[in-house]
């Protein structure tokens, strides 16, 4: 059974100084976007025309490759990673205005933090690196935002990383196809998953932290059981590399974005693709659900190499 999503609005030339939008990150009332330009845009998702309400200028002079937000509404935190190698932490005040709140100071060489992820409460940040090291940082400012976990892998570039919402697991996807799940409480490797062989470019824990979805150059999306480490499903259908994955709030649906500019919505229960949307003819870097708002139907946003952000809403009935 397929589902219908309607285009609500499209922001063209969202980042005029860049070619590609590399990341989207939602909060309950906003969407943040980052690109090859130096600034972060903040859109109001409660208004019909999704206006830009804030621009965080000169965040990263060489462009921004990753941007994430903490899931919980009260967390009010975001983090951005730039091509110059820095990771900046952003905080939001009561009025919804963002400001810079510090930097992760890596003891390693600059440029060694690549993908980043925030815990739901915004207290922890996980990062991957080109040499395969996976780190977890406490974002406690009084303690100087120290590194609290350091996981060694076999040295393959960590292209993606995620933290489970309950904070107990870190997962990393690597260029050689490996996927690791680490137990943050014990500081040990919980599972070494295999099955994709090709570079793993995105992974995401389900809201209940029971499942892990992963995708990449193999063009399939693999679903793993976090407790057992078993692969429980394979979603096939994407014609290009899978670049982004995001679970809906209820865990019923998975949204995926691909290099071939297509986004797909998958129903977890039936393991079936229920909707496909094209977003121009350039790589689709970001595909994110907007948090569910009572009395409103589910929405998601797509962005990528065409420099446009499109907002979709589930068709009523």
């Amino acid at each position: 059974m397929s589902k219908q999503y309607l285009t609500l609005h499209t922001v063209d030339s969202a980042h005029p100084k860049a070619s590609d939008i590399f990341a989207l990150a939602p909060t309950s009332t906003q969407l943040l976007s980052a690109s090859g330009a130096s600034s972060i845009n903040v859109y109001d998702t409660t208004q019909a025309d999704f206006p830009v309400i804030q621009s965080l200028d000169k965040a990263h002079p060489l462009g921004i490759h990753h941007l994430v937000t903490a899931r919980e509404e009260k967390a009010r935190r975001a983090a951005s990673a730039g091509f110059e190698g820095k990771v900046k932490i952003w905080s939001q005040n009561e009025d919804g205005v963002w400001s810079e709140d510090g930097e992760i100071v890596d003891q390693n060489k600059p440029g060694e933090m690549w993908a980043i992820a925030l815990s739901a409460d915004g207290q922890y940040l996980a990062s991957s690196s080109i040499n395969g090291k996976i780190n977890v940082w406490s974002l406690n400012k009084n303690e100087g935002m120290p590194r609290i976990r350091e996981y060694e892998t076999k040295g393959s570039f960590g292209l993606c990383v995620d933290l489970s919402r309950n904070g107990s697991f870190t997962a990393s996807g690597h260029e050689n196809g490996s996927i690791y799940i680490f137990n943050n409480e014990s500081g040990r490797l919980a599972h070494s998953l295999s099955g994709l062989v090709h570079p793993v470019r995105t992974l995401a824990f389900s809201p209940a932290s029971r499942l892990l979805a992963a995708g990449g150059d193999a063009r399939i999306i693999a679903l793993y059981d976090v407790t057992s480490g078993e692969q429980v499903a394979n979603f096939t259908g994407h014609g290009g590399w899978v670049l982004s994955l995001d679970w809906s709030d209820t865990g019923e649906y998975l949204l995926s974005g691909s290099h071939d500019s297509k986004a797909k919505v998958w129903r977890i229960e039936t393991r079936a693709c229920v909707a496909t949307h094209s977003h121009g003819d350039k790589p689709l870097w970001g595909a994110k659900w907007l948090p569910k708002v009572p009395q409103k139907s589910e929405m998601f946003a797509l962005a990528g190499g065409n420099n446009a952000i499109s907002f979709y809403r589930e068709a009523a009935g």
Partner: protein
Amino acid sequence: MDVDDFEDILFTPLDSQNSLGEDLLDSDDEILFPICDEEPNLWNSSANPITTSGTTDTSPGRHVSTAKPLNTREQSQHGLNDQAHRPVRDRHWVTARIEAMIEKIVDGLLEGHGVLTITLKSRAALSRRRIAATEADGRVPEPKERDINFPGANAQEAWNFTVLVRILELVHGSLTDNTIMTKRDIYYRHPDLFVKQSVVDRYVDDLACTFGVHRSQLNLTAGAKGLVAGNFALDQDNGHQLNGMNGKEGMLVPTIGENDTIDLTRVQWVLVVEKEATFRSLMSSPQWKMLGSHGVILTAKGYPDVASRKFLRRLTDNAPHIPMYAFVDLDPDGIAIMSTYKYGSYRLAHEDVTPTDTPALSLPNIRWLGLKSHHMSRTPVGEDDTDTAVLPHLQGLMRLTARDRTKAARMLEWDLCVEGGPEQSWRQELQKMLMFNVKAEMQILDELPGGLVSWLSKELGQAQGIDSDCSDDGMLF
């Protein structure tokens, strides 16, 4: 006026210069500091070496204001910023500078100074990154100075000094004999001393930078490196005629003399390819006769040498309407190589400017033909859900190395690639390379139906705005 007089004027301190008669300055400034309207005679080969007398026929009747300070040290410090007022630095001037350097050392030895010092200026350590705001408009960066001492603190410094003195001696010899040497010649005089070619190259470039002259004014050339082919003809002053369609492997990039004439009437485009392998594969393709009859193809085998850049610059000066394209690998080096063709080498900026301050070797109009990231993903885009089109699986995509990633990040800091800089497409392609962590060589296009030649035919056709018919690419040419 002989060389000694030159030296007296050039190398005496400012105070004593004031004691020189105004008459002397007035009468001789034409010879000492004539203003060059044209680039010095750089196109000469060994058959017609640079001579000092050549300077007297430039701009007769123009005078340098005597109010201008004649302090040569200041002159050379301002160096390239002050092109319009630069004295002609000919063979004799350079010889005199070298002799002054050596004389200082001899004096030092005679007077029993503890340390002998030669001060060199160098751009070798400069990069395009982090340009100070004050220099952003000046384009040519200020060189850095360093002292080479003897006896030095360690064996390395003693070796540096020996190498430099030996190179000075060889350069001086070739200047006084008025013969042209290649950098390779110098290296082979003492391979055991110089250890590797790059040592010679570095010191030669530093010397040219120190004197503020072109390397050719040290009577030094690099051996020709580039290859060129295509439908052009060069009538040389000495009666020789070169035709670019002759030969199956192209010719070494020729030197175009001032009085040579080059015929480009049948040339519709100039294609610069990064790699010799690509050049050779094009030359050996059955379609070459057709393709080559409409254009010129050149490769400098990687980062371009001065000779290849001079040749291209001459083509552009002769026929500015002919479009010029760069075809390079999709990796940080490919873009850096294209940058060297387009803007010149940052570290050899003293080679790059004529006395009238117009860039002598840059190719500002060269266009980037490929390879770009969208060439790798030619997926049909359809709105239908049933579309299961699979990316044509191109072999030859490679992962970036750690060095590639570092280089790409550094290049993003170049003044050319900063946000709002002149090369936004370079910035964007570098960012995408880092995001995908993938690079590709030009040979990847051989996998396409029709191979590289038909791809090039199509791209060149589209780039020129010709209505290209993909089904019959050969017809374009």
